[in-house]
C-alpha cells in the first residue's frame, strides 16, 4: 500500500539493519526492567500457592498473616469484588482458588507487606486446610474422565476431513510421537507495580504482551470501568507467549486498592515457573500414505494436547495443531483429529510456534520414515510434495499468498556443511562439552532436515486489530517531530526500532518518538504474539503515515496553489515536479501540528466449518532447517553442531533483527529437542528452577547460517511476513532427525533424554 507519491528516502531506513535503541542499555545492565521499579512507600506483594495439583479447600485462615507486624493486606477469593475468574478465551480460571485447586502452584491468597521477607513469611503463615485429591494427569484419560471443572474436561475437539480419508497408498508408515512440556523461560520474571490513583482507580505498570487484554480482565475482576484501570508497559525481559495470560496483574491491583499503597510484585525464578502457562505437551499418532513414485496420498493423525487445568489459549493452539498437522505438503486426502484436554497439570497456553511446533515433530518424522521406506532422499521426497501458491491446505484454504516452501528447503540445505569430525576437534566441543566425556572415536555425526509452517496473526475469524496515532509537530528547536502513540508491547522483538524506521521512511521525519505504551490514551494494539506485530502494528503505523502524508500534501497544495496530485513527498519535503517548487515539512507544520489515528484490521478470516474446512488463516510463514549433530551414543549425549535455515520472510525490514529472531528461535527450538522440559510427577512440578530446567548455554547453541527468502507477501504492509515463530518450529525436528541419522534409533519423544538413547542400544 506504499503509494507511488511517497518516495523512499535515500539510504532507505526500511530494509536497513538499524540498531535497536534498547540494545546498548540492555547489554550494559542499564535498561530498567519491570522488576527494577520502585516507588516511595510501596509495599511488596506475595502470592500463596497450592502445594497440591488437586485438592479441596476446606478453609482458609488469614488471621495469622494479618497478625504479623508490617502486613498491610491479605486477600483471597472472597475479596475479589467483580468477576472471580479470568482467561483469554473464556474466564474459566479463578483469580484465587476458593473451594478447589486444580494445579500445583494455583494462587490461593496474596499479601502485601512493608518488606518482601515479611510478605513471604505472612504468605507462609496463612493456614489453608486442604483435602488432597487424586490428580487427573493424563490428557487422553481426561477426555472421558469425570469432569474436574464445571466446563468439562475437553476444551476443544476438532476433526479435519478432506478428500477420501480412507485412501490407501502403496507405502504406509505409522508412528506415535510425544512432546514434553516446554517453558518460555524468559529471563525477566513476572513483575509489576500497582498504584492506587486519586480517582479510585488503579495504575498498573507491568511486563506483559497485551496491555488491553490485561486491562479488561483486571477491570472485570475489580468490577471497575476499564477506563479506571490504566495499564502501562514496564520493561519486558522476554515473553515468548508466557506473558499473554494474566499472572500477577489482578492480584497486584487488588492489593494496592485494599492497602491504599503502591504494591510491587516480583516473582522469584521458582515462582515464575508456576506463574505462567507453558507449551502444551502433545501425544500424536500418525499414519502416512504415499505412492511408489513418492507422492503423498493420505495423512491420518490423532493429536492430544494437554491443556492443563485452565483454558488459556488451548482452543486456538489445538486449532493450529490440526490445521498444520500434515506439514507444508500437498495432500488430496486427510483426516486429522485433535483434542485439547483439561488435566490437573499446570495450565498450558501460548508459546512461540503455538501448536505448529508439536505437530512438526510428528509430520517430519513421518516424512523421513516414508522417504526411507520409498528409498528416496528425504529432501527430494519433500520437494516432490511441497505446497505451492494456489495449492490447497487440508483445511480447504487455497494459499493466495506466497509459499516459497521449495525455496526455503533448497536454501537450508545449500549452506556448506561444517568441517567433518576429526582429531583436531576440541574435546569441549564434543557431546558432553565441559564434562569432557567423549573422545572422537565415541562420537557419531548425523544430519537431518525438517520443514514447518504456521499462520501469522489470529485466525478463525478473530479480529485482532491494532490502533495507532501519530502527531506531527515542531520541536522547540523548530524541527519536525513525529510522536507515535501505540499500545504495542515491546517484548524484545524490536518493534520500537521498526516503528521508527517506518515513520522515518514514510514521512521523512528524523525525530521519531514512541510514547510509552499504555491503555490510557489509545485503543488496543493486540498481542505481541503470533508473529503479528510487524504486519498489524507496522500496518497501522503505515496507514497513519499515509493519512498524515495526505494532510501534508493538502497543506502544501494550498500553499503552492495547485492540486495535491501534482505533488510528491520525499525526504520530509513536498515538491512540485513541474515547477521545482518545494515546501519543507517545517514550514508546513508552522500552521500547527497534524494528528491522525487509525484502527487497522487485517483481512477477514473464517471460522473452521464442517470437517474443519475454511479460510481460517491470514497468511502463512514457512521455514526449513538442516541440523548437524554429534551424538555420543553410549552416553546418549548430544551436541548440535550447526543449524542452517531458509526462511520465508516476505521482506526483511531490518535484517539484523530478523537474524536475531532466527538465532534466538533456533536456540529455543533445539532447547525443546534436547533438554528443555518441565518435569511433572503426578501433577507436581519437579524442576522449577534454572538449576534443573535446562536451557541452552553458549556451548549448546550451534553455529547458525540463515538465508532469507524475500518474496513480498501480497496484502502485507511492506510485503513483510512475521519472522518470530518459524525458527522455533522445524529447528527442533531437524535436530531429532539428525539424532536418528546418527544413532539409527527412532527418537519418538522430545526432549531426547540421555537415557532414551543410551539405554536402547
Amino acid at each position, binding site marked *: 500500500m506504499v503509494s507511488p507519491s511517497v518516495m523512499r528516502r535515500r539510504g532507505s531506513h526500511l530494509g536497513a539493519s538499524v540498531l535497536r535503541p534498547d540494545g546498548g542499555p540492555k547489554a550494559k545492565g542499564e535498561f530498567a526492567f519491570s522488576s527494577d521499579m520502585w516507588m516511595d512507600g510501596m509495599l511488596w506483594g506475595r502470592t500463596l500457592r497450592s502445594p497440591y495439583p488437586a485438592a479441596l479447600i476446606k478453609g482458609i485462615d488469614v488471621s495469622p498473616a494479618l497478625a504479623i507486624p508490617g502486613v498491610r493486606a491479605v486477600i483471597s477469593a472472597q475479596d475479589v469484588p467483580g468477576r472471580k475468574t479470568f482467561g483469554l478465551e473464556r474466564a474459566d480460571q479463578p483469580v484465587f482458588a476458593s473451594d478447589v485447586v486444580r494445579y500445583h502452584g494455583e494462587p490461593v491468597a496474596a499479601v502485601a507487606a512493608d518488606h518482601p521477607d515479611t510478605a513471604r513469611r505472612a504468605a507462609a503463615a496463612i493456614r489453608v486446610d486442604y483435602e488432597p485429591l487424586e490428580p487427573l494427569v493424563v490428557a487422553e484419560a481426561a477426555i472421558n474422565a469425570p469432569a474436574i471443572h464445571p466446563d468439562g474436561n475437553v476444551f476443544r475437539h476438532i476433526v479435519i476431513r478432506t478428500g477420501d480419508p480412507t485412501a490407501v497408498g502403496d507405502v504406509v508408515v505409522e508412528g506415535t510421537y510425544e512432546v514434553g512440556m516446554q517453558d518460555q523461560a524468559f529471563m525477566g520474571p513476572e513483575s509489576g507495580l500497582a498504584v492506587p490513583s486519586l480517582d479510585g482507580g488503579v495504575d498498573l505498570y507491568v511486563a506483559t504482551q497485551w496491555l488491553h487484554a490485561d486491562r479488561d480482565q483486571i477491570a472485570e475482576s475489580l468490577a471497575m470501568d476499564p477506563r479506571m484501570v490504566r495499564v502501562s508497559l514496564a520493561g519486558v525481559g522476554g515473553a515468548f507467549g508466557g506473558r499473554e495470560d494474566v499472572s500477577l496483574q489482578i492480584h497486584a491491583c487488588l492489593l494496592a486498592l485494599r492497602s491504599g499503597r503502591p504494591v510491587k510484585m516480583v516473582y522469584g525464578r*521458582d515462582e515464575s515457573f508456576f506463574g505462567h502457562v507453558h507449551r502444551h505437551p502433545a501425544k500424536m499418532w500418525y499414519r502416512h500414505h504415499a505412492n511408489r513414485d513418492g507422492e503423498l496420498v493420505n495423512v491420518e493423525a490423532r493429536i492430544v494436547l494437554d491443556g492443563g487445568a485452565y483454558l488459556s489459549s488451548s482452543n486456538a493452539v489445538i486449532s493450529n495443531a490440526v490445521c498444520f498437522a500434515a506439514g507444508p505438503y500437498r495432500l488430496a486426502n486427510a483426516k486429522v483429529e485433535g483434542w485439547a484436554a483439561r488435566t490437573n497439570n499446570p495450565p498450558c497456553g501460548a508459546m512461540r510456534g503455538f501448536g505448529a511446533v508439536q505437530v512438526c515433530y510428528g509430520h517430519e518424522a513421518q516424512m523421513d520414515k516414508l522417504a526411507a521406506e520409498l528409498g528416496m532422499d528425504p529432501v527430494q521426497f519433500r520437494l516432490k510434495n511441497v505446497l505451492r501458491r494456489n495449492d490447497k491446505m487440508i483445511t480447504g484454504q487455497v494459499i493466495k499468498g506466497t509459499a516459497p516452501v521449495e525455496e526455503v528447503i533448497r536454501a537450508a540445505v545449500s549452506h556448506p556443511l561444517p568441517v567433518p569430525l576429526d582429531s583436531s576437534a576440541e574435546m569441549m566441543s564434543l557431546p*558432553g562439552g565441559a*564434562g569432557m566425556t567423549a573422545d572422537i572415536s565415541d562420537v557419531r555425526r548425523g544430519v537431518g532436515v525438517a520443514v514447518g509452517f504456521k499462520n501469522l496473526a489470529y485466525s478463525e475469524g478473530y479480529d485482532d486489530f491494532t490502533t495507532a496515532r501519530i502527531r506531527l509537530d515542531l520541536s522547540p528547536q523548530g524541527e519536525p517531530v513525529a510522536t507515535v502513540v501505540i499500545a504495542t508491547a515491546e517484548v524484545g522483538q524490536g518493534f520500537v526500532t521498526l516503528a521508527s524506521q517506518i515513520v522515518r521512511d514514510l514521512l521523512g521525519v528524523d525525530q521519531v518518538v514512541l510514547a510509552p505504551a499504555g491503555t490510557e490514551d489509545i485503543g488496543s494494539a493486540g498481542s505481541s504474539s503470533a508473529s503479528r506485530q510487524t504486519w498489524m502494528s507496522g500496518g497501522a503505523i503505515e496507514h497513519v503515515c499515509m493519512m498524515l502524508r495526505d494532510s501534508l500534501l493538502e497543506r502544501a497544495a494550498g500553499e503552492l496553489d495547485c492540486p495535491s496530485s501534482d505533488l510528491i513527498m520525499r525526504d520530509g519535503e513536498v515538491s512540485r515536479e513541474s515547477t521545482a517548487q518545494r515546501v519543507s515539512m517545517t514550514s508546513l507544520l508552522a500552521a500547527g501540528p497534524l494528528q491522525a489515528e487509525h484502527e487497522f484490521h487485517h483481512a477477514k478470516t473464517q471460522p473452521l466449518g464442517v470437517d474443519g474446512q475454511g479460510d481460517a488463516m491470514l497468511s502463512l510463514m514457512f521455514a526449513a532447517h538442516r541440523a548437524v549433530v554429534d551424538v555420543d551414543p553410549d552416553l546418549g549425549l548430544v551436541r548440535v553442531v550447526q543449524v542452517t535455515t531458509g526462511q520465508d520472510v516476505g521482506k526483511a525490514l531490518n535484517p539484523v533483527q530478523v537474524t536475531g529472531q532466527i538465532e534466538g528461535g533456533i536456540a529455543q527450538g533445539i532447547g525443546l529437542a534436547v533438554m528443555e522440559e518441565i518435569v511433572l510427577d503426578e501433577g507436581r512440578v519437579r524442576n522449577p528452577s534454572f*538449576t534443573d530446567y535446562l536451557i541452552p548455554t553458549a*556451548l549448546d547453541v550451534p553455529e547458525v547460517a540463515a538465508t532469507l527468502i524475500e518474496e513480498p507477501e501480497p496484502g502485507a504492509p511492506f510485503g513483510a511476513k512475521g519472522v518470530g515463530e518459524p525458527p522455533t518450529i522445524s529447528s527442533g525436528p531437524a535436530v531429532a532427525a539428525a539424532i536418528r541419522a546418527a544413532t539409527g534409533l527412532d527418537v519418538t519423544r522430545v526432549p531426547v533424554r*540421555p537415557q532414551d538413547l543410551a539405554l536402547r542400544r
Partner: protein
Amino acid sequence: MRVARPRTISEALSALDDNPGSQLLAGGTDFCVEVNYGHRRPEGVVCLRRVAELRDFEVGEGKVRIGAGTTYTEMVKRLSGVLPALAAAARTVGSPQIRNAGTLGGNVATASPAGDTLPLLAALDAEVVLVSSKARRVVPLNELITGVKTTTIGPGEMVAEVVVPRISGPQHFLKVGTRNAMVISIASAAVVVDLQAQVVRCGLGSVGPVPIRASRAEEMISEAIDWDDLSAPRAALERFGDLAAEAARPITDHRSTADYRKRAVAVIAARAMRRSLTRVT
C-alpha cells in the same frame, strides 16, 4: 544480622565462637541460593573471602595442601600440572562467575552427592583439616561426609585445608550432565593411576549419597594393567566399567534414572581408564 569480616583464621574462629548462630560464607554459591529459596536463615555470617590464609596452597614432596578458600578458577589455573583431574573437575563447575566465587571448602562442606571435587578427593583418600578455637583435627573425607549434604563438621569448626597425596601418573575426571556446560552432574568418575605403587584409584560422584570408591574395579584393573608399558586389554577396561557400575548406588530423580546413572558410570569410568593408558590391547 551480624556480619563478621575476619582477616585471619583465628579471627574467623573467634567470630564463630562469639556469635554461635553465625554461619560461614565463602563464595556464597551454595549459601546464597539456599537463602534465596528460604531454606537457610542465618542469624549472622562470617565472611571468609578476606582470609588470605585460606587461599594458601602448597605442593610438597609427598603431599599437596589446598586451602579451603581456593576458588575453582584458581584450581584450573594453578593445579593443572600437579592435580590435573582436580583442575578438570573445577573446569566443569558452573559458569565463569561461579568458578570465580565458589571454593573447594564450600564444595566439601556442602557435601552434595553432585559436588564435583569430591570423587577425585575420595579417590585420593583426601584428608580434611578442621580447625576450631579449641582444636585442630584431621578427618579423612570418607569419615567427614556421612550422607547427602551431611558432615561431621561441628559447631565452631571450619575447613582450613584439604590434603591429598602427591601421586605421579595420569589422572582424569569425566562428568555427565544433560547440557554441555553449567550443569549438575548426573554421574561422574575420577581415575588416578599411581605409577609408583602400581595401583589405580577410582572415585564416583552423583551415584550415591556420598562419593563412592570403586574398590573392586580398582583391584581388578591394577592387576590387569601391564605396568611396563601401561597397557591393558579391552576386556579389562569394560570389566572396569562394569565393576564401577556395580559399586554405584544411584537413585532415580527428576534429573535422571538409576539405570542410566549406572550405565553412564560404567562408560565414563572405562573411558577415564582408557585415557590413562598408553595403549589398549
